[in-house]
């Protein structure tokens, strides 16, 4: 007998998610109603591979939300996530592109500050960028409708490392600390107010056979909102590690997960659950208090997961990656709520939590 089963997607609660892809497009996906099917409602930007999005950051505010995207051609763009207006564009490394040596340096991390400089009626965007070769840069840019006399601070930049490739970076919730890690770079924590390194991890000892696994971090995040001392990192040797900077330099917990590199790590609101996505499309959640696998998210996910986003209020997570699908999952039951085909290799997903179906 032919087995013909329809895709059972219960539909997801009303939400709005923005995805960026390798072709430089920003797509807005909205689901309306109690159990709506999400649809692409808007697509911003012309398709152009040289403008492919590498990193995105979203200031999720009730008033004046802002979306920052770092493109392949060294541009950082600021968009209004409600209507897609470009508010500002800056070329970050003007000085570097001149000498040519750093031409092939690309953005890996971008963070848009949400709380800093809010008193200036948020017409000034402060952001932190980080490139593959380890150049971090903290700067601010005036948005288009800013008053003319607004002065922007001179950018402060520093080198994270001299060798190796940075692949992941993250900023904690208070936005005072940033962490970086990468291929050949141990996870290190920086104080952003002083631009100084305050902590570096130490690689785990070689195993009983004397084999040392080379350092290669592929994803990292802070574990909880309040605490900047706990860091979760994923490695290319398919390990999820928990670091506690107040305890020791080596990982407190280290768990192996499947057999492909961990490509995305995102923390939950509760401060101990994390979501992990791998290079072959496995998505799972871990309880980092014990290091136990809570469960896998099973749903025909067939390409590497590049980004995971957690909805701040609803128990919904969104994942996207190279299989060109944006998938929405129930965080509690680990059920696939719905999947949207977005045609391109997706790089980032962010969730706009202040979206209401009526608005």
């Amino acid at each position, binding site marked *: 007998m*032919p*087995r*013909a*089963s329809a895709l059972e997607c219960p539909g997801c609660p009303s939400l709005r998610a923005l995805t960026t892809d390798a*072709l430089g*497009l920003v797509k807005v996906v909205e689901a309306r109603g109690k159990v709506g099917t999400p649809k692409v409602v808007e697509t911003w930007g012309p*398709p*152009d*591979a040289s403008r492919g999005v590498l990193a995105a950051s979203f200031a999720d505010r009730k008033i004046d939300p802002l979306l920052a995207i770092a493109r392949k051609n060294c541009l950082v763009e600021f968009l209004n996530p409600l209507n897609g207006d470009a508010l500002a564009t800056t070329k970050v490394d003007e000085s570097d592109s001149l000498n040519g040596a750093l031409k092939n340096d690309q953005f890996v991390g971008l963070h848009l500050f949400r709380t800093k400089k809010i008193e200036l009626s948020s017409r000034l965007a402060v952001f932190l960028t980080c490139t593959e070769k380890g150049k971090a840069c903290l700067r601010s840019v005036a948005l288009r409708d800013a008053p003319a006399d607004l002065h922007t601070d001179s950018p402060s930049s520093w080198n994270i490392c001299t060798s190796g490739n940075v692949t992941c970076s993250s900023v904690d919730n208070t936005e005072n600390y940033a962490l970086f890690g990468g291929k050949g770079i141990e996870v290190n924590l920086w104080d952003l107010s002083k631009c100084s390194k305050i902590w570096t991890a130490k690689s785990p000892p070689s195993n009983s056979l004397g084999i040392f696994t080379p350092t*290669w971090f*592929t994803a990292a995040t802070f574990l909880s909102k309040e605490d900047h001392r706990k860091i979760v990192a994923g490695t*290319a*040797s398919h390990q999820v590690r928990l670091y506690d900077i107040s305890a020791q330099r080596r990982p407190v917990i280290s768990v192996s997960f499947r057999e*492909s*590199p961990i*490509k995305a790590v995102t923390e939950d609101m509760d401060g101990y659950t994390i979501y992990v996505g791998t*290079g*072959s*499309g496995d998505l799972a959640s871990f309880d980092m208090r014990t290091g136990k696998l809570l469960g896998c998210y*099973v*749903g*025909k*996910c*067939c*390409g*590497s997961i590049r980004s995971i986003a957690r909805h701040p209020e609803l128990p919904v997570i969104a994942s996207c990656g*190279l*299989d*060109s699908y944006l998938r929405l999952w129930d965080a509690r039951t680990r059920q696939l709520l719905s999947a949207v*085909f977005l*045609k*391109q*290799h997706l790089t980032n997903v962010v969730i706009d939590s202040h979206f209401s179906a009526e608005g």
Partner: protein
Amino acid sequence: MGTGKRKKSDDGEVEAAAERRGGGGERVKEKKQMVLPSLIKNKEKRSAVHAKLKRDKRIEKRKKAKAQEAALQRALEIGEEPPPKKVPRTIENTREPDETICKPDDEELFAGNDADEFSEVLKQDVTPKILVTTCRFNSTRGPGFIEELLSVIPNAHYYKRGTYELKKIIEYAKNKDFTSIIVVHTNRREPDALLIINLPEGPTAHFKLSNLVLRKDIKNHGRPTSHKPELVLNNFTTRLGHRIGRMIQSLFAQDPNFRGRRVVTFHNQRDFIFFRHHRYIFETKEKKADPKDKAAKGAKEKNAPPQKVIARLQECGPRFTLKLITLQHGTFDTKGGEYEWVHKPEMDTSRRRFFL
């Protein structure tokens, strides 16, 4: 004991049969036909019932076909439109709807195609140059297959594998301006996998290779010339299929030499990619008075030219089947690689779901 038990159950059935017999006269007959032969325990009776059922079925079928034929004849005589021919339902034409199937009016698809890794070759900015190598242990059918592969793909160069790592080979090929690497993997002296790596940026496709028939095992095979072949890619419909199709396309020269009359076919059917290699010829032939055709084409024959052109095919080999296992983003990297597509068992929810 066993026989006793069986007798008992037999008795039960006899009783049940008797009960059925108790009903109305016509209903009995109906009921009797309804009894499945597999439920009858006596083998002779069972086979008799089965044979009868089979015979009835055959008669029914013949009757149906005859009725259809008669309807068609009648329609032809009256000059009416003949009844529509029924299309058989196959797995392909009842394929599950898939939103990833490419539409011809999709702007994003073309923009994406323009930007992908193969566009340089496909726009003829770069001529494809292929490196063919093997796994480390290679014997018997492997070299034979590679020899034929070299004759199929123009500008392909065989390099001995030696003990080099594949990553080193990729570095080497990048420096030598190769555009693709093909690795033939052999298991138990039989080629069983094909790895196609597009250079310099990937992707890497891993295919299972099966049903390999080499040229000398094909009856009435031809010898291919060294002209650049034409390429036929069939049924690559989805996004993934397009990508694989473009990858295969980028292995071949984009300017076929039509004088060579060689054609290489990659036909996708139910996610299996069938490879065939043919020579073709157009021949003008005196029209034969074919008794069968005469009736059908009676009117047509009068004004048709006395000569007709027919195309003949001759297979040149090799002949094999590919099935995609993984498609990896970037060049070959098993440890740190990201996959664009991996086949997982949970994706097999239906026989009617295809990915290419």
